[in-house]
């Protein structure tokens, strides 16, 4: 029995495990190890099989881990099968590193750009299957990649790009529309080529492209036959004069406008921005020096101010050098909505607006995860099935809208759907069931909707293969908050849901409120601050013990005395003689007691050093305008601490 036949046997066993008709992993594990030991199996294949067997023998605790594990085993066995069936394809990749590493690097960067253009064109083509420009762009991308890859000795890329190019050239030749199957193949080619390009810098990584290549060959043959048929039946050749290929292809440089660009390593840019932040702080220390402050209208003060303006402009410029547009995120979104709507078999229209919105490149990747998750949620749970929509008097196609814009130092992303809206009674039931609220609690509508962001909350009744499992909006909120952003939700029953994300343009600078507590100063990040006010003496209620509260517009807020929490002596004890800063959102809203508000500040947040890492209530420090260190308060931790205190206290009495 040959290795390949036994591998097919293993695949069969694996399928049984996957669908659950068998549960004993041992026979498959034994079989894989036997095949790995048998003659004629290459070390590469044997390695894959042993690895798969190891995975199978690992103890698993729960269903999720088990499913993950099986997926990994499937992946390994697939690679082994592929390697046995087409040894050529997998061995090729080892030759590619002979070429000049710098050229390889250039090729990687350039190819990823080509593939982005190709993906954009493929989306355009899908929207308008006869779009000749899109077909041209795709052809050019594949063709140029093929050429360079051939030169650099990357045969897998050549083989795949060649096939994709052939397909497009056949479509282009007769000027017909691309059909859905062909467009799909183009998408898959883009994905696989991207994986192959990524694998260049990750030796050992193998990319499955055999099946796709075969599918492309088949489609090319079919298209060729059809083209021949068209040619023989329809009389003269295409009306437009055939353009020589070289002329239409265009060089890579022309395509990317390469000569006008300089590539800079991101870490250098990071250092530049950090350095400018320090320069700005040093400059503001200078302008606040008594020698200059005392001579407010003198030339010296004016000169120091002029330097400050230049430094601020430079800092803005440097930050803008690190910004990128959201176009990549938008494309990813478009691509994903396409796959999701195919997966559910119901069409969804996606409207995108604000692709040119810019954001710090350090932020963009971190923003992608929450956005992707929210889109999945909207598709899986927000937008109804076509039948339900018709019954509700809507168009059968669902509508998703992603809007982005720059608003001052923030980026605002709005994701809306025209689906069924959030089910408020279900949210309430679930929150009670989870013990997040009491059945008789009265919540404002906003607070009720915000419950979906509380950890452990999820209204998804069923788990679909699209939305993954166990990851809810609490994770989205956490991701956004890690970016110093915030998320809000609005929803109308039967009409849809709108999520609004606000994140800073950059993490390099923190906007803060500088407050005085006793003789000490602290920075409260502005993103947490709602408002500040001085309460009437009667608004403050001593709680039964640790927790006090204050009434603000008929709502009771827990009051946190910063001087107690932070151990500051000599601070104002009477809230009516001090100021309360309201931080947090919804049920997590708190009033922080400080002596006075000093200033709005922009600071560069820095760690306090490993020695003070574990100190509570602080996220770091910043050099203030007078050169001293100001400590930045950890508002979420302080808000959570109040909950801990409240828990220690069985009864929370309130007598208004």
């Amino acid at each position: 029995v040959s290795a390949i036949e036994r591998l097919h046997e293993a695949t069969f066993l694996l399928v049984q495990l996957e669908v659950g008709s068998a549960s004993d992993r041992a026979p498959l594990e034994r079989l894989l190890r036997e095949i790995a030991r048998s003659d004629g199996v290459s070390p590469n294949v044997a390695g894959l099989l042993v690895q798969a067997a190891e995975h199978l023998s690992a103890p698993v605790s729960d269903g999720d881990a088990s499913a993950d594990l099986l997926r990994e085993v499937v992946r390994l066995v697939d690679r082994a099968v592929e390697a046995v069936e087409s040894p050529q394809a997998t061995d090729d990749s080892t030759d590619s590193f002979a070429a000049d590493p710098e050229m390889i690097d250039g090729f990687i960067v350039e190819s990823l750009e080509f593939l982005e253009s190709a993906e954009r064109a493929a989306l355009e083509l899908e929207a308008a299957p006869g779009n000749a420009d899109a077909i041209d762009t795709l052809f050019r991308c594949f063709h140029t990649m093929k050429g360079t890859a051939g030169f650099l000795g990357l045969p897998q890329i050549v083989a795949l790009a060649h096939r994709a190019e052939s397909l497009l050239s056949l479509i282009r030749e007769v000027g017909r529309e691309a059909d859905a199957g062909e467009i799909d193949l183009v998408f898959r080619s883009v994905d696989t080529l991207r994986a192959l390009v990524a694998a260049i810098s990750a030796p050992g990584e193998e990319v499955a492209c055999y099946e796709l290549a075969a599918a492309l060959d088949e489609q090319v043959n079919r298209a060729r036959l059809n083209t021949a048929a068209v040619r023989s039946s329809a009389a003269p050749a295409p009306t437009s004069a055939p353009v020589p290929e070289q002329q239409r292809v265009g060089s890579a440089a022309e395509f990317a406008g390469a000569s006008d660009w300089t590539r800079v390593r991101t870490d250098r840019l990071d250092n530049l921005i950090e350095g400018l932040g320090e320069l700005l702080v040093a400059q503001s220390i200078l302008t606040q020096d008594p020698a200059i402050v005392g001579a407010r209208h003198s030339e010296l003060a004016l000169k120091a101010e002029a330097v400050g303006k230049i430094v601020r402009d430079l800092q803005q410029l440097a930050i803008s050098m690190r910004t990128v547009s959201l176009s990549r995120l938008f494309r990813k979104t478009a691509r994903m909505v396409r796959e999701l709507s195919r997966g559910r078999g119901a069409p969804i229209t996606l409207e995108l607006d604000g692709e040119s919105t810019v954001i710090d490149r350090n932020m963009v990747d971190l923003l992608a995860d929450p956005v992707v998750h929210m889109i999945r949620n909207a598709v899986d749970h927000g937008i109804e099935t076509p039948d339900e929509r018709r019954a509700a008097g809507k168009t059968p196609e669902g509508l998703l809208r992603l809007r982005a814009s720059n608003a001052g130092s923030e980026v605002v992303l709005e994701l809306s759907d025209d689906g069924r809206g959030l089910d408020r009674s279900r949210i309430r039931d679930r929150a009670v069931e989870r013990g997040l609220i009491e059945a008789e609690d009265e919540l404002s509508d906003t607070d009720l909707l915000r419950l979906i962001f509380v950890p452990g909350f999820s209204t998804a009744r069923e788990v679909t293969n699209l939305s993954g499992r166990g990851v809810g909006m609490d994770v989205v909120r956490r991701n956004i908050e890690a970016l110093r952003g915030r998320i809000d939700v609005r929803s109308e029953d039967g009409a849809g849901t709108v999520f609004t994300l606000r994140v800073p343009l950059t993490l390099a600078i923190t906007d803060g409120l500088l407050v005085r507590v006793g003789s000490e100063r602290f920075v409260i990040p502005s993103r947490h601050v709602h408002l500040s006010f001085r309460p009437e003496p009667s608004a403050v209620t001593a709680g039964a013990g640790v927790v006090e509260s204050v009434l603000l517009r008929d709502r009771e807020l827990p009051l946190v005395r910063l001087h107690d929490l932070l151990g500051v002596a000599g601070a104002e004890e009477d809230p009516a003689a001090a100021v309360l800063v309201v931080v947090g959102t919804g049920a997590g809203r708190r009033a922080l007691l400080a002596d006075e508000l000093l200033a709005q500040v922009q600071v560069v947040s820095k760690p306090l050093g490993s020695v003070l890492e574990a100190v509570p209530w602080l996220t770091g420090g910043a050099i203030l305008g007078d050169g001293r260190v100001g400590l930045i308060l950890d508002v979420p931790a302080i808000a959570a601490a109040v909950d801990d205190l409240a828990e220690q206290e069985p009864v929370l009495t309130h007598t208004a």
Partner: protein
Amino acid sequence: MTAARYLAFHVDGVEYALEAVRVREIVPLPPVTRVPNAPAHVRGVANLRGRIIPVVDLRVRLGSRPATDHRYVSVIVVHLNDGVAGLIVDGVADMLDVQPHQVRSPAGRSDDTDGGLVHAVADLGDRSPLLLDPDRVAGAVADALHVRASPVP
């Protein structure tokens, strides 16, 4: 075996020394921002040319009272395993060459008397500075903080 260079300084009338390779610089006491809930011997944090460093009062760390007169104190900025810290001392004396055979264990000294920081004594005849391990300064700070970080005050 070659001699190692040490920086000698005084804290509360006692002579101590740190290995010179661990010393980054010596600066006058900068304005220090108190850090809430830090242990008593961490005076706070300070701005060292744009970098934030913790500042440890060696008097307190070594078990005596903090100095009330700061006119003559200096801060020795030392390299730690993972970062930098400033140590407040009463005054820096001079550089010493210490031969390996002059180093002996700190017999008779217990952890209680100097916080476990003294790892050896250099026997130089006319003087015998106590040798400090800067990483223990940091380690002790971290330990003290872990204890304090958990309960809500």
